[in-house]
Structure formats: C-alpha cells, structure tokens
C-alpha cells in the first residue's frame, strides 16, 4: 500500500503547492498504512529535493532530464515508477500538468481517476473521495473501485503539515525517453505573482468601466502582494489578457482572500471563485448576485471606494 506523488518543478524550484501535495501524500500513506514515494522529473538540486523531507517525503525518485513536458513520455515514466514501487494510489496536483498527465497514467495503470478531490479520502476502505461537481454547485462523493487509484488534488484544500524525517534520493534512468511534441518557444512572465499560487487575488469586472482604470486595482494588488484577475467580459473586451480571466471557462482559483471589484457575480464567474476562503465584493448595485456569494460587501462606486481601500490596507501593512 504505497502512495506515489508526482511533483512538478518550476525551473528547478518547488512551490507552496508542492509542499501541500507532499504532506497530503504523507497523510494519505499514513491512512493507508503504507509509505510515500515522490517522483520528480526534470533538474532539481539535491537541497531542494531534500527539503521535502520536512513535509513527509521518504523516498524521492529523481528522473533527471532536460526534456520539457511531453504528455506521453512523462505519463509513461510516472506509470512505470508506480508499477516499480507497487503504488496503490498515485497523486498529482490538479493543475495544468496534472490534468495533462493523470488521465494517461490512469489508463496505463488500468486505474479509476477522480480529479480535483478536496482533501483526504472520506474513507480508505472502500476508497471514497470528495470533490465538487457541476462547477461548484454540488459536492460529490465517488468511490474508486479499481486496484490502483489515481487522484488529482485541488489546490489549497489540504493544508501543509510538517513531519520529522529525512528524504532519500534515488536517481532513475531517463535515457529511453522520447518525445512526440516539440517546444518551439516558451514565454513566461517573470516577477508577477501567479494567479494559481496567490493567497490574495484582486479581480476586476465590467464595473471598472475601462482598461485605463486598472491602475488603482494594481495598486491595491501591490499593497496586498496579490495576483490580479478579471471577469470574462473584461478579457473578452481586451481590457486584460485572457490568462487573467477567472470563471467557469477561465481559471478556477482558491485563494484565502478574493476581491471582486465591479463584478456582478454571474454564475459562470462564481464557478471560478467558489473555493475562495473569503470573498470581498464591491459593487454599486445592491442587488448584484455577487453579494450572495461574498462574505464582506461594500455598496459604492469603485472610483471612490478603491483608493480608500488601498489606503486602509497600506496603513495596516505599514503598521505590521
């Protein structure tokens, strides 16, 4: 009964979500009465890998390669590691990479897959997990009935725990990896807080009125160390880039604190934010549906409210 967790790296580094995933894997292994094995693909320094010991990592398989993500090649490596280590549960993050790889790994292992699970299983025997369905409108419990089980974990649903122990690194062979896809170029914005990793998200809607009005929103985000986001009409209008669109067909986020500024709260938008711990809404329309999803609401005009809000947070942050 061992658990295999695939851990992704970003230019050789791990993120907060990695620590959540590893400590989740450890608790899962404890619940099953088994051990935890991690698999890293790429080039990660030994120190960075060893750090994962504090989050419960026992054995870490390190597949050193410069090959960028190729769904088939990576899935084959993960499924191979699962077989070699008698994994009964394979865990990945429910992010872009996990979504690409988990289904392929599941087929290779003849395993049932439940994606975007919230936290630890409801029951280990039978293996029952909980997840959201219908874009956040329902909670569902599903049993994985196959011998090997594959799950992806929704970010920010399990928390981070630390454990005593040391990680042992084992290199695995990658010489037979081949790729059917070729990366021609990569463009990554640096210095920006990633929407997927942010604790605080400041998001603007049509109520911001125009692309020129984003400066005060960015100022608030700067004060809070937040990522910026927007609703669908805003990205459709081209006021903000598409990768900032939060909602059903855009990104689904789960920050601790979400600011909905001038966002009416259409059901498609709520689908993207319903996992946020706390939602603050500002809207001039007291009937806006966003107020039924929000924890704190302010009825008012953003042009006057936003600078005051930023000032209050600035005062708080400098006093801390």
């Amino acid at each position, binding site marked *: 009964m061992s658990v295999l967790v695939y851990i992704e790296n970003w230019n050789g580094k791990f993120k907060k979500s990695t620590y959540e995933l590893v400590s989740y894997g450890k608790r899962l292994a404890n619940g099953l009465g088994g051990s935890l094995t991690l698999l890293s693909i790429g080039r990660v320094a030994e120190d960075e890998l060893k750090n994962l010991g504090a989050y419960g990592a026992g054995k870490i398989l390190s597949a050193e390669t410069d090959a960028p993500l*190729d*769904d088939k090649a990576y*899935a084959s490596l993960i499924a191979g590691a699962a077989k070699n280590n008698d994994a009964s549960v394979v865990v990945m993050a429910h*992010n*872009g990479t996990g*979504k*690409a790889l*988990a*289904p*392929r790994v*599941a*087929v290779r292992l003849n395993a*049932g*897959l*439940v*994606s975007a699970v919230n936290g630890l299983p409801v029951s280990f025997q039978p293996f029952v997990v909980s997840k*959201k*369905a*219908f*874009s*956040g*409108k*329902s*909670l*569902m*419990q599903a*049993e994985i*009935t*196959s011998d090997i089980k594959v799950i*992806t974990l929704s970010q920010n649903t399990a928390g981070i725990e630390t454990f005593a122990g040391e990680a042992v690194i084992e290199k695995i062979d990658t010489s037979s990896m081949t790729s*059917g*896809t*070729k*990366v021609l*170029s*990569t*463009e990554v*914005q640096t210095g920006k807080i990633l929407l997927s*990793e942010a*604790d605080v998200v400041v998001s603007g809607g049509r109520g911001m009125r125009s692309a020129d009005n984003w400066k005060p929103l960015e100022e608030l985000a700067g004060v809070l160390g937040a990522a910026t986001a927007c609703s669908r009409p805003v990205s459709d209008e081209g006021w903000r880039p598409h*990768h900032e669109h939060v909602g*059903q*067909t*855009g990104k689904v986020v789960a920050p*601790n*604190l979400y600011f909905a500024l001038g966002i009416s709260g259409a059901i*498609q938008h709520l689908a993207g934010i319903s996992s946020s*711990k*706390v939602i603050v809404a500002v809207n001039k329309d007291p009937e806006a549906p966003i*107020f*039924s999803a929000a*924890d*704190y609401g302010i009825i008012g005009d953003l042009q006057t*409210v936003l600078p*005051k*809000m930023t*000032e*209050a*947070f600035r005062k*708080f942050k400098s006093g801390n």
Partner: protein
Amino acid sequence: MNILVCISNVPDTTTRIKYSADMKAVDYSGVQWIINPWDELALTRAIELKEANPALVQKITVITAGGADAEPTLRKALACGADDAIRVDAAGGDSLFTATQLAHAVKGEPFDVILCGIESSDYNGSAVGGMLAELLDYNSVSAVSSLNLEGNSVKVTREIDGGKQSIETAAPVVLIVQKGIAINPRIPSMRGIMTARTKSLKVVAAAAASPGSKVVGYQAPPQKSACKMIDPENMDELVHLLHTEARVI
C-alpha cells in the same frame, strides 16, 4: 485532414442542480442540455479552420457517448457546421468508461486531429481527452489555447503557469483545448439547422468496458453565511474584520 470533435452533453450552466430523494443521483428532469462550453469552443475552431482552408480540412465529425437523448446536442453541433456525427450508444459511467467507448468507435478511423474540451461542466473531470489519447496511443497536448494546421504539421499554443509555449507536433494527435482556442462560440444559422436534419448521425454499439469509479452520493454545498455589509466610508473596518474575524490578512 479530418477533425474529430468530442462532445459532452451537459446541463445548461444556469441549471439548478436537484437530486433524487436518497441523494444518490442527480435529478435531470426539466434540464436544458447544451454542448459542453469547452467542446463548443473546440468545434468553433474546427469550423473556422475548415472555412479558412477547405482543401486542408476535408471533414469535421462530432462524437459523443450517450443515450438517444444526447442526439439533439449532436444535431446542434451539425447545425453549427460539423459534417457528420457519431453517437456511441453508452450512457453513464465514469471518465475511463466514456474514454473507452470513444476509443472503441474511433480506433482505425482516419481522424488526424481529435479535439476535446479540457473539462466538462458537469463532473469537471478533465480526464476523457488524455485517456482517449492514451487508449489510441496518440500524442497529446493539453491546455491548448490556439491551433493552426500547416500540411501535416499541427502548431499549438499551450498555456503554462504564468505564460505560454508554442508547440509543434504531427497528426494524428489529441488536443485538449481551453479558452482562447476560439473566442465566441459558433451559433447555428437557420440554414444550418435545416441542413443538420439531413446530415449523417451514425449510432455505434457500446464496447465492453468497466468503469474505474462510481458516484456514492451528493450533497448540496454548505450555505454561505449572509454577507456582512461595510460602510464605504469606513475601510478601516474592512481591514479590521479581515484581520481579526476572517484572519486572512
């Protein structure tokens, strides 16, 4: 080139979800069914590519796994501009079951590019596309936000954390697509609706397949407590509450 677009038949986004009395099943009575929003974008891009270069894209086929009640959704896809449709007569089951049904119907057929939406708005599984690729032993690229075809070469943009990658691959390939692949979904024209009635909709028998998971039950999500309203002139109050009550700053 032939393009296959996988379609999931899902309840309209604004549907209020109801359950059976024992909470073990969703009650679909009175539900309006639509093409899954991501699949609709995939279909839109396929139609755009065919319109732009009919010599390169010869045919667009849509496929779904489901009962006869899924046929109106396939007809809508035909009305949007797909050339023919396949329904695998297999309702229910999990992602592994569905992907196995699709793979069974598609294996050996001359599809060069297979498009799947990145998730379906019912079970939000993000699984069928990748599973289908693995079952067919095709390459796949996920999180695809743009697609161009040049001869046998397939050029896509893949969204990654904080950026994007330009990727080249060759047919046959499964592309798992997301927002950006097309902006506004294609709406059927009156003429499209008329011609859709005469387009071919082939029904294929289900394959023997067993699911890897099953639904145990449902719950309504917990009710949010009422929104606390704050005076717009008193933003210190908001800061105070977020710090001491919500404890998020």
